[in-house]
Protein backbone atom coordinates (compact mmCIF):
# COMPACT_ATOMS: atom_id res chain seq x y z
CA UNK A 1 0.00 0.00 0.00
CA UNK A 2 3.07 2.22 -0.10
CA UNK A 3 1.95 3.91 -3.25
CA UNK A 4 1.20 7.29 -4.66
CA UNK A 5 -2.54 6.69 -4.43
CA UNK A 6 -2.41 6.23 -0.70
CA UNK A 7 -0.24 9.32 -0.33
CA UNK A 8 -2.75 11.42 -2.22
CA UNK A 9 -5.51 9.86 -0.14
CA UNK A 10 -3.78 11.38 2.85
CA UNK A 11 -3.91 14.86 1.32
CA UNK A 12 -7.35 16.03 2.57
CA UNK A 13 -6.53 14.61 5.96
CA UNK A 14 -3.23 16.45 6.18
CA UNK A 15 -4.96 19.61 5.04
CA UNK A 16 -7.47 19.10 7.83
CA UNK A 17 -4.67 18.69 10.37
CA UNK A 18 -2.93 21.82 9.17
CA UNK A 19 -6.03 24.00 9.21
CA UNK A 20 -8.05 22.71 12.12
CA UNK A 21 -5.43 21.21 14.40
CA UNK A 22 -2.11 22.97 13.93
CA UNK A 23 -3.59 26.44 13.53
CA UNK A 24 -5.74 26.22 16.69
CA UNK A 25 -2.84 24.73 18.67
CA UNK A 26 -0.65 27.62 17.59
CA UNK A 27 -3.36 30.02 18.67
CA UNK A 28 -3.82 28.28 22.01
CA UNK A 29 -0.09 28.27 22.71
CA UNK A 30 0.11 31.94 21.77
CA UNK A 31 -2.76 32.87 24.10
CA UNK A 32 -1.29 30.78 26.90
CA UNK A 33 1.67 33.16 26.94
CA UNK A 34 -0.51 36.22 27.49
CA UNK A 35 -1.71 37.51 30.83
CA UNK A 36 -5.10 39.07 31.36
CA UNK A 37 -3.87 42.44 30.08
CA UNK A 38 -2.32 40.98 26.97
CA UNK A 39 1.33 41.10 28.04
CA UNK A 40 3.74 38.26 27.40
CA UNK A 41 4.38 36.19 30.48
CA UNK A 42 4.97 32.69 31.76
CA UNK A 43 2.84 33.30 34.83
CA UNK A 44 0.00 31.16 33.56
CA UNK A 45 2.29 28.16 33.50
CA UNK A 46 3.46 28.95 37.00
CA UNK A 47 -0.14 29.27 38.12
CA UNK A 48 -0.93 25.83 36.75
CA UNK A 49 1.53 24.30 39.21
CA UNK A 50 -0.37 25.60 42.21
CA UNK A 51 -2.30 23.22 44.41
CA UNK A 52 -5.67 24.26 42.99
CA UNK A 53 -4.90 23.14 39.44
CA UNK A 54 -2.88 20.11 40.45
CA UNK A 55 -5.80 18.95 42.56
CA UNK A 56 -8.09 19.51 39.61
CA UNK A 57 -5.78 17.55 37.32
CA UNK A 58 -5.79 14.69 39.74
CA UNK A 59 -9.55 14.67 40.08
CA UNK A 60 -9.97 14.92 36.29
CA UNK A 61 -7.83 11.84 35.83
CA UNK A 62 -9.55 9.99 38.61
CA UNK A 63 -13.04 10.58 37.25
CA UNK A 64 -11.95 9.94 33.67
CA UNK A 65 -10.53 6.65 34.88
CA UNK A 66 -13.72 5.71 36.74
CA UNK A 67 -15.88 6.65 33.78
CA UNK A 68 -13.75 4.69 31.32
CA UNK A 69 -13.61 1.68 33.61
CA UNK A 70 -17.35 1.46 34.12
CA UNK A 71 -18.08 2.22 30.49
CA UNK A 72 -15.85 -0.68 29.50
CA UNK A 73 -17.41 -2.90 32.13
CA UNK A 74 -20.89 -2.29 30.77
CA UNK A 75 -20.00 -2.12 27.09
CA UNK A 76 -17.91 -5.23 26.58
CA UNK A 77 -20.62 -7.72 27.54
CA UNK A 78 -23.21 -5.64 25.72
CA UNK A 79 -21.15 -5.67 22.54
CA UNK A 80 -20.47 -9.38 22.97
CA UNK A 81 -24.12 -10.29 23.39
CA UNK A 82 -25.13 -7.99 20.56
CA UNK A 83 -22.94 -9.90 18.13
CA UNK A 84 -24.93 -12.98 19.00
CA UNK A 85 -28.36 -11.49 18.31
CA UNK A 86 -30.28 -12.13 15.14
CA UNK A 87 -30.53 -8.60 13.79
CA UNK A 88 -27.24 -7.46 15.27
CA UNK A 89 -26.71 -4.45 12.96
CA UNK A 90 -30.15 -3.14 13.81
CA UNK A 91 -29.64 -3.56 17.54
CA UNK A 92 -26.32 -1.80 17.24
CA UNK A 93 -27.99 1.16 15.56
CA UNK A 94 -30.56 1.23 18.31
CA UNK A 95 -27.71 1.65 20.79
CA UNK A 96 -26.58 4.81 18.99
CA UNK A 97 -29.95 6.45 18.42
CA UNK A 98 -30.43 7.75 21.99
CA UNK A 99 -27.21 9.73 21.62
CA UNK A 100 -28.84 11.77 18.87
CA UNK A 101 -31.29 13.40 21.27
CA UNK A 102 -30.04 16.64 22.78
CA UNK A 103 -27.90 16.12 25.85
CA UNK A 104 -29.34 19.01 27.84
CA UNK A 105 -32.85 17.62 27.40
CA UNK A 106 -31.71 14.18 28.49
CA UNK A 107 -30.03 15.74 31.48
CA UNK A 108 -33.27 17.41 32.50
CA UNK A 109 -34.92 14.03 32.12
CA UNK A 110 -32.28 12.50 34.37
CA UNK A 111 -32.90 15.21 36.95
CA UNK A 112 -36.54 14.12 36.91
CA UNK A 113 -35.78 10.41 36.94
CA UNK A 114 -33.23 10.59 39.75
CA UNK A 115 -35.31 13.04 41.74
CA UNK A 116 -36.81 12.40 45.14
CA UNK A 117 -40.24 11.97 43.61
CA UNK A 118 -39.00 10.49 40.38
CA UNK A 119 -39.70 7.04 38.99
CA UNK A 120 -36.44 5.57 40.26
CA UNK A 121 -37.17 6.40 43.88
CA UNK A 122 -40.74 5.23 43.46
CA UNK A 123 -39.30 1.96 42.22
CA UNK A 124 -36.97 1.69 45.20
CA UNK A 125 -39.80 2.38 47.59
CA UNK A 126 -41.67 -0.63 46.27
CA UNK A 127 -38.90 -2.71 47.78
CA UNK A 128 -39.25 -0.95 51.10
CA UNK A 129 -36.28 1.41 50.89
CA UNK A 130 -36.47 5.06 51.81
CA UNK A 131 -36.33 7.50 48.92
CA UNK A 132 -32.89 9.01 48.51
CA UNK A 133 -31.60 12.13 46.83
CA UNK A 134 -29.45 10.62 44.13
CA UNK A 135 -28.56 13.76 42.25
CA UNK A 136 -25.39 15.69 42.93
CA UNK A 137 -23.41 12.68 44.03
CA UNK A 138 -20.34 11.05 42.54
CA UNK A 139 -22.45 8.07 41.64
CA UNK A 140 -24.98 10.01 39.59
CA UNK A 141 -22.16 11.89 37.88
CA UNK A 142 -20.31 8.73 36.86
CA UNK A 143 -23.58 7.09 35.89
CA UNK A 144 -24.62 9.83 33.49
CA UNK A 145 -21.11 10.10 32.05
CA UNK A 146 -21.06 6.38 31.42
CA UNK A 147 -24.48 6.72 29.82
CA UNK A 148 -23.11 9.32 27.42
CA UNK A 149 -20.02 7.34 26.48
CA UNK A 150 -21.52 3.86 26.11
CA UNK A 151 -22.09 4.03 22.32
CA UNK A 152 -18.53 5.25 21.81
CA UNK A 153 -17.18 2.18 23.58
CA UNK A 154 -19.61 -0.38 22.19
CA UNK A 155 -19.07 0.42 18.53
CA UNK A 156 -15.37 -0.37 18.20
CA UNK A 157 -15.63 -3.40 20.46
CA UNK A 158 -18.60 -4.70 18.52
CA UNK A 159 -16.71 -4.29 15.28
CA UNK A 160 -13.73 -6.25 16.47
CA UNK A 161 -15.86 -8.99 18.04
CA UNK A 162 -17.99 -9.26 14.98
CA UNK A 163 -15.17 -10.39 12.75
CA UNK A 164 -13.84 -12.80 15.33
CA UNK A 165 -13.66 -16.23 13.81
CA UNK A 166 -16.01 -18.44 15.88
CA UNK A 167 -13.92 -21.44 14.88
CA UNK A 168 -11.12 -20.11 17.08
CA UNK A 169 -13.43 -20.03 20.08
CA UNK A 170 -14.75 -23.51 19.41
CA UNK A 171 -11.23 -24.80 18.92
CA UNK A 172 -10.17 -23.41 22.27
CA UNK A 173 -13.17 -24.93 23.97
CA UNK A 174 -12.56 -28.28 22.26
CA UNK A 175 -9.02 -28.25 23.51
CA UNK A 176 -10.39 -28.07 27.01
CA UNK A 177 -10.03 -24.38 27.82
CA UNK A 178 -12.58 -23.07 30.30
CA UNK A 179 -14.93 -20.30 29.23
CA UNK A 180 -12.86 -17.80 31.19
CA UNK A 181 -9.56 -18.99 29.75
CA UNK A 182 -11.01 -18.88 26.27
CA UNK A 183 -12.07 -15.32 26.86
CA UNK A 184 -8.76 -14.28 28.37
CA UNK A 185 -6.44 -16.08 25.99
CA UNK A 186 -8.40 -16.02 22.74
CA UNK A 187 -11.22 -13.50 22.59
CA UNK A 188 -9.76 -10.61 24.53
CA UNK A 189 -6.37 -10.48 22.76
CA UNK A 190 -8.06 -10.61 19.38
CA UNK A 191 -10.37 -7.69 20.26
CA UNK A 192 -7.68 -5.62 21.93
CA UNK A 193 -7.50 -3.09 19.07
CA UNK A 194 -11.20 -2.37 19.42
CA UNK A 195 -10.97 -2.06 23.19
CA UNK A 196 -8.00 0.25 22.88
CA UNK A 197 -9.76 2.53 20.48
CA UNK A 198 -12.84 2.47 22.73
CA UNK A 199 -10.75 3.48 25.71
CA UNK A 200 -9.21 6.31 23.73
CA UNK A 201 -12.52 7.75 22.60
CA UNK A 202 -13.86 7.63 26.15
CA UNK A 203 -10.91 8.50 28.35
CA UNK A 204 -9.63 11.43 26.32
CA UNK A 205 -12.87 13.40 26.14
CA UNK A 206 -13.76 12.40 29.71
CA UNK A 207 -10.68 14.32 30.85
CA UNK A 208 -12.22 17.54 29.65
CA UNK A 209 -15.86 16.97 30.55
CA UNK A 210 -17.67 20.06 31.66
CA UNK A 211 -21.41 20.86 31.56
CA UNK A 212 -22.54 17.72 33.35
CA UNK A 213 -20.12 18.46 36.16
CA UNK A 214 -22.54 21.26 36.91
CA UNK A 215 -25.80 19.76 35.71
CA UNK A 216 -25.50 16.39 37.40
CA UNK A 217 -22.73 16.83 39.95
CA UNK A 218 -23.69 20.36 41.01
CA UNK A 219 -20.05 21.49 40.80
CA UNK A 220 -19.09 19.00 43.47
CA UNK A 221 -16.82 17.57 40.81
CA UNK A 222 -14.43 20.06 39.26
CA UNK A 223 -12.40 19.03 36.24
CA UNK A 224 -9.94 20.78 33.98
CA UNK A 225 -12.69 21.10 31.40
CA UNK A 226 -14.83 23.07 33.83
CA UNK A 227 -11.89 25.29 34.67
CA UNK A 228 -11.22 26.05 31.03
CA UNK A 229 -14.84 26.87 30.40
CA UNK A 230 -14.89 29.21 33.39
CA UNK A 231 -11.69 30.94 32.34
CA UNK A 232 -12.98 31.48 28.81
CA UNK A 233 -16.59 32.35 29.46
CA UNK A 234 -16.72 33.89 32.92
CA UNK A 235 -13.36 35.38 33.83
CA UNK A 236 -12.56 35.95 30.17
CA UNK A 237 -8.98 35.11 30.98
CA UNK A 238 -8.19 33.39 27.70
CA UNK A 239 -4.55 33.14 28.72
CA UNK A 240 -5.11 30.88 31.70
CA UNK A 241 -7.80 28.91 29.86
CA UNK A 242 -5.38 28.26 27.02
CA UNK A 243 -2.65 27.22 29.42
CA UNK A 244 -4.87 24.55 30.92
CA UNK A 245 -5.72 23.44 27.40
CA UNK A 246 -2.02 23.13 26.57
CA UNK A 247 -1.62 20.80 29.52
CA UNK A 248 -4.68 18.79 28.51
CA UNK A 249 -3.16 18.30 25.08
CA UNK A 250 0.14 17.27 26.67
CA UNK A 251 -1.64 14.72 28.87
CA UNK A 252 -3.40 13.35 25.80
CA UNK A 253 -0.11 12.97 23.93
CA UNK A 254 1.35 11.08 26.89
CA UNK A 255 -1.66 8.77 26.93
CA UNK A 256 -1.27 8.19 23.21
CA UNK A 257 2.40 7.33 23.67
CA UNK A 258 1.53 4.82 26.37
CA UNK A 259 -1.34 3.15 24.52
CA UNK A 260 0.12 3.77 21.06
CA UNK A 261 0.69 1.05 18.52
CA UNK A 262 4.35 0.25 18.88
CA UNK A 263 4.29 -2.33 16.16
CA UNK A 264 4.87 -0.96 12.74
CA UNK A 265 6.07 -3.95 10.86
CA UNK A 266 2.63 -4.83 9.59
CA UNK A 267 1.70 -8.39 8.78
CA UNK A 268 0.56 -9.23 12.26
CA UNK A 269 0.23 -12.84 13.16
CA UNK A 270 -3.37 -13.73 13.10
Amino acid at each position, binding site marked *: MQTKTSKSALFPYVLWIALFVIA*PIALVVYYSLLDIHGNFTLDNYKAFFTSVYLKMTLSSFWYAFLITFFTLLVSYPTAY*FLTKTKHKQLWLLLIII*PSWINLLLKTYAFIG*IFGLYGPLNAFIEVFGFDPKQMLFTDISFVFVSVYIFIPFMILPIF*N*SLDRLNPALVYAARDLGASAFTTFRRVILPLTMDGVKSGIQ*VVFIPALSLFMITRLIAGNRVITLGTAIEQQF*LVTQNWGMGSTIAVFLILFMVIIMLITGQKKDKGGRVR
Partner: protein
Amino acid sequence: MKKLSASARVYLAIVFIVLYAPIFYLIFYSFNSGGTMNSFESFTLEHYKAVFEDSRLLVILINTVIVALLSALISTIIGTLGAIGIVTVKDSKMRNTLLSLNNVLIVSPDVIIGASFLILFTMIGIKLGFASVLLAHVAFSVPIVVLMVLPKLLEMNKSLIDAALDLGATKKDVMMRVILPYIQPGIFAGFFLALTYSLDDFAVTFFVTGNGFSTLSVEIYSMARAGISLTVNAISGLVFFVTVIVVVGYYFITSRASKRTGGTQ
Protein backbone atom coordinates in the same frame (compact mmCIF):
# COMPACT_ATOMS: atom_id res chain seq x y z
CA MET B 1 -24.70 -19.72 15.95
CA LYS B 2 -25.62 -20.29 19.53
CA LYS B 3 -28.71 -18.71 20.96
CA LEU B 4 -28.45 -16.06 23.61
CA SER B 5 -28.81 -17.29 27.15
CA ALA B 6 -31.61 -15.93 29.31
CA SER B 7 -29.25 -13.94 31.48
CA ALA B 8 -27.69 -12.35 28.41
CA ARG B 9 -31.13 -11.30 27.25
CA VAL B 10 -31.91 -9.76 30.62
CA TYR B 11 -28.59 -7.93 30.55
CA LEU B 12 -29.26 -6.48 27.12
CA ALA B 13 -32.79 -5.56 28.12
CA ILE B 14 -31.50 -3.60 31.11
CA VAL B 15 -28.94 -1.76 28.98
CA PHE B 16 -31.62 -0.79 26.49
CA ILE B 17 -34.06 0.28 29.18
CA VAL B 18 -31.46 2.55 30.75
CA LEU B 19 -30.46 4.00 27.38
CA TYR B 20 -34.03 4.81 26.45
CA ALA B 21 -35.39 5.81 29.87
CA PRO B 22 -34.59 9.53 29.64
CA ILE B 23 -35.91 9.68 26.10
CA PHE B 24 -39.23 8.16 26.99
CA TYR B 25 -39.35 10.38 30.03
CA LEU B 26 -39.08 13.53 27.98
CA ILE B 27 -41.46 12.26 25.33
CA PHE B 28 -43.96 11.45 28.08
CA TYR B 29 -43.87 15.06 29.23
CA SER B 30 -44.27 16.36 25.69
CA PHE B 31 -47.94 15.41 26.16
CA ASN B 32 -48.19 17.37 29.41
CA SER B 33 -50.59 20.29 29.43
CA GLY B 34 -48.77 21.63 32.52
CA GLY B 35 -46.07 23.32 30.47
CA THR B 36 -43.01 21.92 32.28
CA MET B 37 -41.22 18.62 32.73
CA ASN B 38 -42.38 18.39 36.32
CA SER B 39 -45.84 17.39 37.39
CA PHE B 40 -48.00 15.82 34.73
CA GLU B 41 -51.34 17.56 34.55
CA SER B 42 -53.33 16.20 31.65
CA PHE B 43 -52.85 14.87 28.16
CA THR B 44 -52.53 17.35 25.33
CA LEU B 45 -51.21 17.56 21.80
CA GLU B 46 -50.78 21.34 21.88
CA HIS B 47 -46.98 21.16 21.95
CA TYR B 48 -47.01 19.11 18.77
CA LYS B 49 -49.33 21.60 17.19
CA ALA B 50 -46.95 24.36 18.26
CA VAL B 51 -44.08 22.61 16.49
CA PHE B 52 -45.85 22.76 13.16
CA GLU B 53 -46.94 26.34 13.65
CA ASP B 54 -43.43 27.50 14.48
CA SER B 55 -41.77 27.66 11.09
CA ARG B 56 -38.62 29.15 12.61
CA LEU B 57 -38.13 26.09 14.80
CA LEU B 58 -38.80 23.77 11.87
CA VAL B 59 -36.19 25.52 9.76
CA ILE B 60 -33.72 25.20 12.64
CA LEU B 61 -34.51 21.51 12.91
CA ILE B 62 -33.98 20.96 9.20
CA ASN B 63 -30.71 22.91 9.33
CA THR B 64 -29.57 20.73 12.19
CA VAL B 65 -30.25 17.55 10.24
CA ILE B 66 -28.61 18.82 7.06
CA VAL B 67 -25.47 19.90 8.89
CA ALA B 68 -25.33 16.58 10.75
CA LEU B 69 -25.74 14.43 7.64
CA LEU B 70 -23.37 16.38 5.44
CA SER B 71 -20.70 16.93 8.06
CA ALA B 72 -20.79 13.26 9.02
CA LEU B 73 -20.51 12.25 5.38
CA ILE B 74 -17.60 14.55 4.57
CA SER B 75 -15.73 13.80 7.77
CA THR B 76 -16.19 10.09 7.16
CA ILE B 77 -14.56 10.42 3.76
CA ILE B 78 -11.66 12.51 5.06
CA GLY B 79 -11.25 10.37 8.16
CA THR B 80 -11.30 7.06 6.30
CA LEU B 81 -8.72 8.27 3.82
CA GLY B 82 -6.69 9.62 6.72
CA ALA B 83 -6.80 6.32 8.59
CA ILE B 84 -5.71 4.43 5.49
CA GLY B 85 -2.90 6.93 5.10
CA ILE B 86 -1.85 6.60 8.73
CA VAL B 87 -1.41 2.81 8.58
CA THR B 88 0.80 3.15 5.54
CA VAL B 89 3.19 5.31 7.54
CA LYS B 90 6.03 2.94 8.46
CA ASP B 91 7.84 5.12 10.94
CA SER B 92 6.26 4.54 14.33
CA LYS B 93 7.28 7.96 15.66
CA MET B 94 5.64 9.65 12.71
CA ARG B 95 2.56 7.52 13.11
CA ASN B 96 2.19 8.35 16.79
CA THR B 97 2.62 12.03 16.03
CA LEU B 98 -0.15 11.87 13.47
CA LEU B 99 -2.40 10.04 15.91
CA SER B 100 -1.70 12.57 18.64
CA LEU B 101 -2.52 15.43 16.30
CA ASN B 102 -5.64 13.53 15.34
CA ASN B 103 -6.83 13.49 18.94
CA VAL B 104 -6.18 17.12 19.79
CA LEU B 105 -9.72 18.13 18.94
CA ILE B 106 -11.15 15.30 21.01
CA VAL B 107 -9.38 16.44 24.14
CA SER B 108 -9.96 20.16 23.64
CA PRO B 109 -13.05 21.53 25.35
CA ASP B 110 -15.69 22.92 23.03
CA VAL B 111 -15.23 26.52 24.09
CA ILE B 112 -11.62 26.45 22.92
CA ILE B 113 -12.47 24.79 19.63
CA GLY B 114 -15.31 27.24 19.11
CA ALA B 115 -13.32 30.33 19.96
CA SER B 116 -10.30 29.35 17.87
CA PHE B 117 -12.44 28.37 14.88
CA LEU B 118 -14.26 31.67 15.14
CA ILE B 119 -10.95 33.52 15.03
CA LEU B 120 -9.79 31.30 12.17
CA PHE B 121 -12.93 31.80 10.10
CA THR B 122 -13.06 35.54 10.53
CA MET B 123 -9.36 35.68 9.67
CA ILE B 124 -9.71 33.82 6.38
CA GLY B 125 -13.00 35.55 5.67
CA ILE B 126 -15.53 32.73 5.70
CA LYS B 127 -19.02 34.09 6.15
CA LEU B 128 -20.51 32.90 9.41
CA GLY B 129 -23.55 30.75 8.84
CA PHE B 130 -24.21 27.45 7.14
CA ALA B 131 -20.76 27.09 5.56
CA SER B 132 -18.81 27.89 8.71
CA VAL B 133 -20.94 25.60 10.87
CA LEU B 134 -20.62 22.75 8.37
CA LEU B 135 -16.87 23.23 8.16
CA ALA B 136 -16.51 23.28 11.94
CA HIS B 137 -18.59 20.13 12.34
CA VAL B 138 -16.54 18.34 9.70
CA ALA B 139 -13.42 19.44 11.52
CA PHE B 140 -14.32 18.09 14.94
CA SER B 141 -15.84 14.87 13.59
CA VAL B 142 -12.81 13.72 11.59
CA PRO B 143 -10.85 12.33 14.57
CA ILE B 144 -13.65 10.07 15.77
CA VAL B 145 -13.91 8.56 12.29
CA VAL B 146 -10.18 7.89 12.22
CA LEU B 147 -10.36 6.21 15.60
CA MET B 148 -13.23 3.99 14.48
CA VAL B 149 -11.67 2.95 11.18
CA LEU B 150 -8.16 2.40 12.49
CA PRO B 151 -8.69 -0.82 14.47
CA LYS B 152 -10.34 -2.46 11.48
CA LEU B 153 -7.38 -1.53 9.30
CA LEU B 154 -4.90 -2.77 11.86
CA GLU B 155 -6.54 -6.15 12.23
CA MET B 156 -6.74 -6.58 8.49
CA ASN B 157 -4.67 -9.41 7.26
CA LYS B 158 -1.80 -8.17 5.16
CA SER B 159 -1.70 -11.46 3.27
CA LEU B 160 -5.16 -10.66 1.98
CA ILE B 161 -3.79 -7.69 0.11
CA ASP B 162 -0.70 -9.53 -1.03
CA ALA B 163 -2.83 -12.38 -2.30
CA ALA B 164 -5.01 -9.98 -4.25
CA LEU B 165 -1.96 -8.30 -5.75
CA ASP B 166 -0.46 -11.67 -6.65
CA LEU B 167 -3.64 -12.55 -8.44
CA GLY B 168 -3.13 -9.54 -10.63
CA ALA B 169 -5.45 -7.02 -8.96
CA THR B 170 -4.59 -3.37 -9.49
CA LYS B 171 -4.06 -1.05 -6.55
CA LYS B 172 -7.45 0.46 -7.21
CA ASP B 173 -9.05 -2.98 -7.14
CA VAL B 174 -7.37 -3.72 -3.84
CA MET B 175 -8.75 -0.54 -2.38
CA MET B 176 -12.26 -1.01 -3.75
CA ARG B 177 -12.64 -4.75 -3.40
CA VAL B 178 -10.48 -5.68 -0.46
CA ILE B 179 -9.77 -2.82 1.89
CA LEU B 180 -13.01 -0.83 1.81
CA PRO B 181 -15.34 -3.82 2.17
CA TYR B 182 -13.27 -5.09 5.05
CA ILE B 183 -13.24 -1.82 6.99
CA GLN B 184 -16.85 -0.99 6.13
CA PRO B 185 -18.17 -1.61 9.67
CA GLY B 186 -15.59 0.84 10.98
CA ILE B 187 -16.62 3.39 8.38
CA PHE B 188 -20.26 3.12 9.39
CA ALA B 189 -19.35 3.32 13.07
CA GLY B 190 -17.37 6.48 12.33
CA PHE B 191 -20.26 7.96 10.38
CA PHE B 192 -22.79 7.33 13.12
CA LEU B 193 -20.59 8.70 15.87
CA ALA B 194 -19.84 11.74 13.71
CA LEU B 195 -23.61 12.24 13.54
CA THR B 196 -23.70 12.08 17.33
CA TYR B 197 -20.93 14.65 17.64
CA SER B 198 -22.67 16.99 15.26
CA LEU B 199 -26.15 16.69 16.76
CA ASP B 200 -24.85 17.12 20.28
CA ASP B 201 -22.60 20.07 19.75
CA PHE B 202 -23.59 23.36 21.25
CA ALA B 203 -20.54 25.46 22.09
CA VAL B 204 -18.64 25.22 18.80
CA THR B 205 -21.77 25.86 16.76
CA PHE B 206 -22.67 28.84 18.87
CA PHE B 207 -19.35 30.52 18.23
CA VAL B 208 -19.10 29.88 14.50
CA THR B 209 -22.71 30.47 13.53
CA GLY B 210 -24.28 33.73 12.49
CA ASN B 211 -26.57 35.53 10.06
CA GLY B 212 -29.68 33.85 11.35
CA PHE B 213 -28.40 30.31 10.98
CA SER B 214 -28.98 28.22 14.08
CA THR B 215 -29.17 24.61 15.20
CA LEU B 216 -31.43 22.88 17.66
CA SER B 217 -28.71 22.59 20.32
CA VAL B 218 -27.96 26.31 20.28
CA GLU B 219 -31.66 27.01 20.56
CA ILE B 220 -32.18 24.61 23.47
CA TYR B 221 -29.19 25.78 25.52
CA SER B 222 -30.12 29.41 25.18
CA MET B 223 -33.62 28.60 26.42
CA ALA B 224 -32.28 27.23 29.69
CA ARG B 225 -32.35 30.56 31.53
CA ALA B 226 -35.98 31.37 30.90
CA GLY B 227 -37.14 27.74 30.91
CA ILE B 228 -37.12 25.18 28.13
CA SER B 229 -40.48 24.97 26.47
CA LEU B 230 -42.14 21.62 25.94
CA THR B 231 -42.26 22.39 22.22
CA VAL B 232 -38.64 21.26 22.28
CA ASN B 233 -39.68 17.98 23.88
CA ALA B 234 -42.30 17.53 21.22
CA ILE B 235 -39.85 18.20 18.42
CA SER B 236 -37.35 15.78 19.96
CA GLY B 237 -40.07 13.17 20.25
CA LEU B 238 -40.93 13.59 16.60
CA VAL B 239 -37.29 13.40 15.57
CA PHE B 240 -36.86 10.30 17.67
CA PHE B 241 -39.80 8.46 16.13
CA VAL B 242 -38.88 9.46 12.59
CA THR B 243 -35.32 8.30 13.19
CA VAL B 244 -36.39 4.95 14.57
CA ILE B 245 -38.80 4.38 11.70
CA VAL B 246 -36.20 5.34 9.11
CA VAL B 247 -33.51 3.18 10.68
CA VAL B 248 -35.70 0.11 11.14
CA GLY B 249 -37.27 0.55 7.72
CA TYR B 250 -33.92 1.02 6.03
CA TYR B 251 -32.51 -1.99 7.81
CA PHE B 252 -35.24 -4.34 6.68
CA ILE B 253 -35.30 -3.02 3.13
CA THR B 254 -31.56 -3.41 2.69
CA SER B 255 -31.36 -6.78 4.40
CA ARG B 256 -34.16 -8.10 2.20
CA ALA B 257 -32.52 -6.63 -0.88
CA SER B 258 -29.17 -8.16 -0.06
CA LYS B 259 -30.82 -11.52 0.59
CA ARG B 260 -32.39 -11.38 -2.83
CA THR B 261 -29.16 -10.54 -4.59
CA GLY B 262 -27.32 -12.95 -2.37
CA GLY B 263 -24.91 -10.32 -1.11
CA THR B 264 -22.83 -11.09 1.92
CA GLN B 265 -22.60 -7.68 3.50
